[in-house]
């Protein structure tokens, strides 16, 4: 039921910002850690706000927003250790932030200058995957590799490694999502499958995807499923941390359903007013992940004006970094598309590269001049 809280949901912070106890899950955080989470939430929301604006200004072709899902992403993302691996969908900008990825690298995808501007090996953040659920089996396979490397259950916190694979509510319907859960179970893989149930798969409500609560779908393959308040950053951190610890210690996989809401459109091309009511959105606005965490921090006396002012300035700097940076992202040279299809030369690709290079070079002698290797936008307009 959109708006209502489902039964059995792990919550450590009420929407009013009141800290509550849970019998199984807790986190004890130092004040600076709490403020660090708040900073993450505010800054990733600012990335989203700025990216939306840049799309409206024509600097991005598209943007898939995370508004409303900040707590699920920051909570789970901050539960990861440096050696862990994350396999995102295309909306995990908050997870990418936690993995130390410059958001400009994400904007590259939506501007169309690359399919992803970060090093997946260095950041241990897999490239964004647009075919829904297709990243999950590779995540499980990566976890099977971790097992074979003896990086599970050693008790060494710097060595024991887990993998987290993200998906949305819509993707749970894909066969590969079920297959990934089942393989994870059979091989007892050190993996957490983290589902952000944001209630909507573009225009389809979660009722189109499932007749039982999503977290219960793991029962059938023997994987524990946990339902957590996805708008509660502390609960998301606690539940994910416990699941990752279990994985790292050799306890096997966990399925987490983070119950949240996509406050914005699916992407900037979507119009959610065609399929859902303003009243429903209002219900969720009252559960906003940042508002509730701010209320909690205020009630604890942790948010002072110096911090808030500094954070505002930092958000402003970040926004400026994105605004300036996106316009300076280098246009890919036309021949660069031939570079990475294969590791070793492929006869047909090399032939096509040479022929296309010669074709481009044939314009160099034309009176209008220019360098087609650097300025693809001008090539199309040129005549022989």
């Amino acid at each position, binding site marked *: 039921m959109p708006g209502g809280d489902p039964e059995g949901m792990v919550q450590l912070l009420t929407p009013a910002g009141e800290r509550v106890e849970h019998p199984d899950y807790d986190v004890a955080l130092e004040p600076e850690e709490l403020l660090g989470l708040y900073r993450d939430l505010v800054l990733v929301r600012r990335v989203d706000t700025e990216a939306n604006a840049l799309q409206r200004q024509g600097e991005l072709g598209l943007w898939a927003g995370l508004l409303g899902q900040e707590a699920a992403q920051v909570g789970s993302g901050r539960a990861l250790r440096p050696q862990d691996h994350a396999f995102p969908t295309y909306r995990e900008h908050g997870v990418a932030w936690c993995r130390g990825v410059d958001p400009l690298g994400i904007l590259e995808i939506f501007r169309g200058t690359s399919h992803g501007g970060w090093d997946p090996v260095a950041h241990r953040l897999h490239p964004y995957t647009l075919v829904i659920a297709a990243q999950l089996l*590779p995540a499980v396979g990566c976890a*099977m590799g971790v097992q074979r490397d003896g990086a599970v259950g050693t008790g060494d916190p710097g060595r024991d490694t887990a993998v987290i694979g993200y998906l949305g509510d819509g993707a749970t319907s894909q066969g590969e999502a079920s297959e990934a859960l089942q393989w994870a179970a059979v091989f007892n893989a050190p993996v957490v499958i983290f589902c952000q149930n944001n209630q909507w798969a573009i225009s389809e409500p979660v009722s189109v995807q499932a007749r039982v609560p999503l977290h219960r779908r793991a029962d059938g393959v023997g994987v524990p499923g946990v339902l957590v308040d996805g708008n509660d950053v502390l609960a998301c951190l606690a539940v994910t941390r416990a699941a990752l610890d279990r994985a790292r210690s050799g306890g096997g996989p966990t399925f987490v359903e983070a119950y949240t809401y996509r406050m914005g459109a699916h992407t900037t091309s979507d119009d959610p007013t065609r399929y859902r009511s303003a009243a429903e959105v209002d219900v969720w606005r009252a559960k906003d992940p940042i508002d509730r965490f701010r209320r909690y921090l205020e009630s604890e006396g942790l948010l002072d004006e110096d911090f808030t002012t500094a954070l505002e300035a930092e958000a402003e700097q970040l926004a400026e970094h994105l605004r300036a940076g996106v316009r300076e992202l280098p246009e890919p040279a036309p021949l660069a598309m031939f570079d*990475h299809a294969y590791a070793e030369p492929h006869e047909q690709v090399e032939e096509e590269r040479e022929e296309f290079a010669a074709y481009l070079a044939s314009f160099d002698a034309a009176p209008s001049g220019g360098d087609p290797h650097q300025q693809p936008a001008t090539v199309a307009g040129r005549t022989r």
Partner: protein
Amino acid sequence: MPNLPLAKAINAGLRTAMERDPKVLLMGEDIGRLGGVFRVTEGLQKDFGEARVLDTPLAEAGIVGTAIGLALRGYRPVCEIQFNGFVYPAFNQIVTQLAKLRARSQGRLELPVVLRIPFGGGIGSVEHHSESPEALFAHVSGLRVVTPATSADAYWMIQQAIASPDPVVFFEPERRYWDKGQVETDATLADVAPLHRARVVRRGEHVTVAAYGPTVRLALEAAEAAAEDGTQLEVVDLRTISPLDVGTVAESVRRTGRLVVVHEAPTFGGVGGELAARITERCFYSLEAPVLRVGGFHLPYPAARVEEHYLPGVDRVLDAVDRSLAA
């Protein structure tokens, strides 16, 4: 120099690769205790253990999807797809992930995954066991597609495929699994023919016949028959489908002026059409006749009792040779 059936040559090649590199893993259905339905992996789980030879759940997307993840973690998985027609549940992982992750990551991710797929007909089996889907994979950039026709090539090409930093789809001709051939096992990977080179396996001056996998032996049989009538066929074993070694075929066609391409897959939209187009582009003025294709029909693979009519046989190859010579 052992005389090995093609299936045993692949087994020996897998064993050598696993001994050389502890990161090489085998994955598939029934490949462990049973040794695979064609016994290609026989004895390997016993010798290398269950951590390196995995009997997997019966889910092809799972096999290829987890192989991708293992490769990301530094392993070199070799996946056995039990039969050609069972590869389709994995098609999404192969096309959208395996083939594209390198480009998607701007060369930062390497996917040294091998998919072994038994293919081709002629073994009298049921539906989905006799198909030749190689063109579907050749059409996907990011994949390499090869197929051995002999035991010697099977032994070396599987090792070369495993050593490749790119994903390789390795098609194994089912009906040649039991064909024996000499295998020079003392050579090194660097000594033997490169993975992506075609080979002229019989010299002849009148018509070039290009074949691969199961049809190489067929082409050689056709050449024997043609020779009795005084027609000398030059037979080229393509060996590699993506990339396609057009140069070796072109060199032959410039001498013979004629080309017939033979494969079991349907000719429509197939490898033969691709080769015909490229040979026509390169050798137009050497050609004495249109390039002809002999292959399967644009039909679902038929029931076993009629497969001999669906599959190209010696007579259909010779018929095409006659048409080429008559042009």
